């Protein structure tokens, strides 16, 4: 087990370094001279520009700058400073991260608490009126752009009914609408996945075996079927949570919540390439870590996978499937 974790970390580190190199290089090509952006509007003499360039260290070769950036990120967690206002990006990330984290945690709790019972209900009453109704509702919710849903929720609950604040961050009630807007679409896909997984598992022989032992139906469903059905769901939860930690960008922008996603969008719009680089690298870090934790959680839940890792035999096909499944907003049902 320990060896497996180490192995995964060993793969993760070069990937993250490669991510950082690529992002840094790409951002080097963002249109606009960073010196001019840093200097702001107005006219500047060539001497001023040159002095600023040297002050920013941009006169040095690209590779040297890249090396320093890598060193900064991986040894000091230092992402440099913003071109526009010169603030520390690390500070920006750390002050904004709690907001993003809150939305992510609330959303995932909401999704799981509603999605699992609903999915189990739909599976148990497959093709009943209730199931069909839930299927239609979830399909529609799934196809809804989250920013549109956010606007509708804001219109109804904040602007018309005045029940909840429309924008900003603060107490819990500021997060209710963002959480709803962020999770309803995903909740739909999640519910359908739980339903599909439950349906598949209830057909397994071991469920019949359990039933043949005479234990009551509740134990058959929740004690035997559900734990097995939840195994593939775990990836989905991890995937979604990791994605949300990267910032529910659109939601943060609409509700004016100072989170990572908003930082990124502002950075792109202001051509603040250092902020963009920092934001993206940070997102890659959190996302990859969550994905790693998800995979580890897997082996805790499923004794078979644990055995695979401890015996150093890995079924690459299965892993491949999990990697692919549940990517892109979890609309996959494989």
């Amino acid at each position: 087990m320990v060896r497996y974790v180490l192995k995964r970390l060993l793969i993760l580190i070069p990937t993250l370094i490669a991510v950082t190199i690529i992002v840094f290089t790409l951002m080097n090509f963002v249109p606009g001279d960073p010196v001019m952006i840093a200097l702001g509007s107005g006219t500047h003499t060539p001497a001023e520009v040159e002095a600023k360039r040297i002050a920013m260290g941009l006169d040095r070769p690209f590779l040297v700058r890249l090396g320093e950036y890598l060193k900064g990120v991986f040894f000091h967690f230092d992402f440099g400073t913003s071109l526009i206002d010169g603030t520390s990006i690390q500070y920006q990330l750390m002050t904004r991260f709690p907001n993003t984290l809150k939305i992510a945690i609330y959303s995932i709790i909401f999704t799981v608490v509603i999605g699992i019972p609903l999915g189990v209900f739909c599976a148990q009453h497959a093709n009943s009126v209730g199931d069909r109704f839930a299927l239609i509702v979830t399909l529609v919710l799934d196809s809804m752009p989250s920013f549109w849903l956010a606007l509708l929720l804001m219109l109804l609950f904040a602007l018309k009914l005045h029940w909840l604040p429309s924008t900003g961050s603060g107490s819990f009630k500021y997060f209710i609408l963002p959480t709803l807007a962020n999770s309803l679409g995903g909740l739909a896909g999640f519910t359908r996945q739980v339903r599909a997984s439950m349906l598949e598992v209830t057909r397994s022989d071991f469920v019949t075996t359990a039933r043949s032992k005479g234990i009551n139906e509740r134990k058959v469903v929740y004690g035997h079927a559900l734990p097995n059905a939840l195994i593939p769901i775990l990836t989905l939860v991890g995937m979604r949570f990791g994605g949300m930690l990267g910032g529910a960008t659109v939601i943060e922008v609409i509700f004016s919540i100072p989170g990572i996603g908003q930082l990124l969008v502002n950075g792109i719009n202001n051509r603040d390439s250092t902020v963009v680089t920092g934001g993206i690298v940070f997102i890659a870090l959190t996302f990859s870590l969550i994905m790693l934790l998800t995979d580890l959680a897997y082996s805790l839940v499923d004794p078979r996978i644990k055995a695979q890792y401890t015996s150093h035999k890995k079924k690459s096909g299965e892993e491949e499937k999990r990697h692919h499944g549940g990517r892109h907003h979890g609309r996959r049902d494989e």
Partner: protein
Amino acid sequence: MKGNRKDTGSLKPGSLRYVWRKLLRNKSAVFGLTVVCVLIVLSLISPLICRYDYRSMDGLNAYSLPSAEHLLGCDELGRDILSRVLYGARYTFIIGILSTAIAAVLGIAMGAVAGYFGGAVDSALMRFLDIFQSFPMLILAMAFCAVFGTGIDKCILALGISNISGFARLMRANILRIRNMEYVEAATSIGCPTRKIITGHVIPNAISPIIVEIAMGISRNGLASSSLSFLGLGVQQPTPEWGAMLSSARSYIRYYPHMAIIPGIFILITVLSFNLIGDAVRDILDPTLKE
């Protein structure tokens, strides 16, 4: 649906024609296909059938609610929303379809190479794709948008590149799965030439999951493109792309919600249609999911 087994029985399950015939018997898929076709046609002929040009402004009618004059009302500059929404459908379709096409072509090629050659080529490609998979899809697309700038072509490119890894992994998994199938082994063992195995067994069996992925990809990318435009990173105003329209309507939502609601409904219907098609194809290909 299974009662129709007889007339499709002659076709190989998984072949394109089989899927197509079954698709035409699936109510929700037909609904999806119809909506998509109607929207495409309406979008193409919208300059001919609409009373107003999608660009023409009419200050007197700014913010006007839906009426007989303007069936879906007007926006803040007095432009007819119906004309704009119909004309704008083409952007969603173009971006959705072209970006998925780019992703599919490149992804399938990479996945096929990785799956076919295996070994070092495979590991190298897969590690490379790991880099892409270190981000949520939308963040990746945003990063590319930041580099490329704004505009339809750049948006297509950004979304296309962001989706390569999904297709590549799917194709690779497919190839590996099929290569180990007993019927391929059987074909090899009776001396069937490689070319025939590939055209007769591998491609027909690999193509079906790809179709599902393409249908889902179009809906995903259509949605993502409107998200990007909404954030001001994709297609910009005054192009009547739905996300961009919503973005500008956002400021007026308190008093003129129709400006935001209408483009959203169109996005919803379009994405829903592609999802219905994708779901139907998946059900056809994997009947065990049914019942």
